[in-house]
């Protein structure tokens, strides 16, 4: 193969910005009126999925300050329904079930280098 062509391909490969492969889902179960696990730590960009295993509706509603709209709010009307959210910023996100306020969960999203 022409060495010039090889060098060109190599240069192109270096120059093309790498696209991060989407991270696989991480699942939190909603079971027995609780989030399992209650606390989760994930890397930035992770898509978290909540699966409702209870025979009743639950929500996953991020808590918000001073009446601002929650960052995410998913409603699962019954067993087998799920809701997903991709965390694209770092921080600690607390959420509850709007129907059962005693249900609380927390996801800590860690940016690269913050670990």
């Amino acid at each position, binding site marked *: 193969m022409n060495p010039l062509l090889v060098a060109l391909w190599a240069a192109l490969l270096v120059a093309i910005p790498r696209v991060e492969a989407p991270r696989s889902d991480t699942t939190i179960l909603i*079971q*027995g*009126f*609780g989030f*399992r696990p*209650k606390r989760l730590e994930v890397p930035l960009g992770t898509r978290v999925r909540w699966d409702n*295993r*209870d*025979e*009743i509706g639950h929500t996953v509603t991020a808590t918000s300050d001073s009446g601002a709209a929650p960052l995410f709010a998913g409603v699962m009307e019954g067993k087998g329904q799920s809701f997903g959210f991709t965390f694209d910023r770092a921080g600690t996100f607390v959420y509850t079930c709007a*129907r*059962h306020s*005693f*249900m609380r969960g927390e996801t800590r999203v860690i940016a690269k280098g913050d670990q």
Partner: protein
Amino acid sequence: MIMQTIRTRTLGLMAALALGGTAIGTAQGTAADLRVGLNTLLAEHIYLASSATGAALGGRTPEFQAAARALDLNSVALSRAIGSVYGDDAGTAFLALWRKHIGFVVDYTTGVAMKNRAKQDKAVSDLLGYATDFGAFLNSACPSLPTGVVADLVRGHITSLKAVIDAQAAGNPAAYADIRSAAAHMRMIADPVAAAIAKQFPERFAAR
């Protein structure tokens, strides 16, 4: 090791059931103990709840406060019993749910005292909705307990306690017969729940 864990958890349940302050038998760890213990705590729930509502409606504040405190201790004992079988998280969730229905009963009693029909209706609606939540909770812990069946039993509990409160508010002496009926109804919840738990964990609740 496993047997020791089972024994510890069983004794934990028995201790939790005994927190109601009532002897539940000398043999520990049998299905019969479980049934008797749950029946005792759930009947006690009625006696204490009706003591609290009667005192509240009669304007006897110190008596109401004492009854409410005792009622909450009964709730905690029930939650510890659940937690000893299904884990601390389940016990915590149970306590929150159980206290929620007591809050709705307080709302209903307040509505009756204020002769506020809308408040009463809202409380009844909340209580009926709660019944499904409670059924779903028990079903999650013990799948052989169908959500709908448990919810219907809890609705029976709500209806029978509502009859007590209405009679107390009216100054009707029939309130005492209603209290007995409401307490007797709790057996319809305690017996199947105890049987289902014993069946779910036969190694813990061996019939002896």
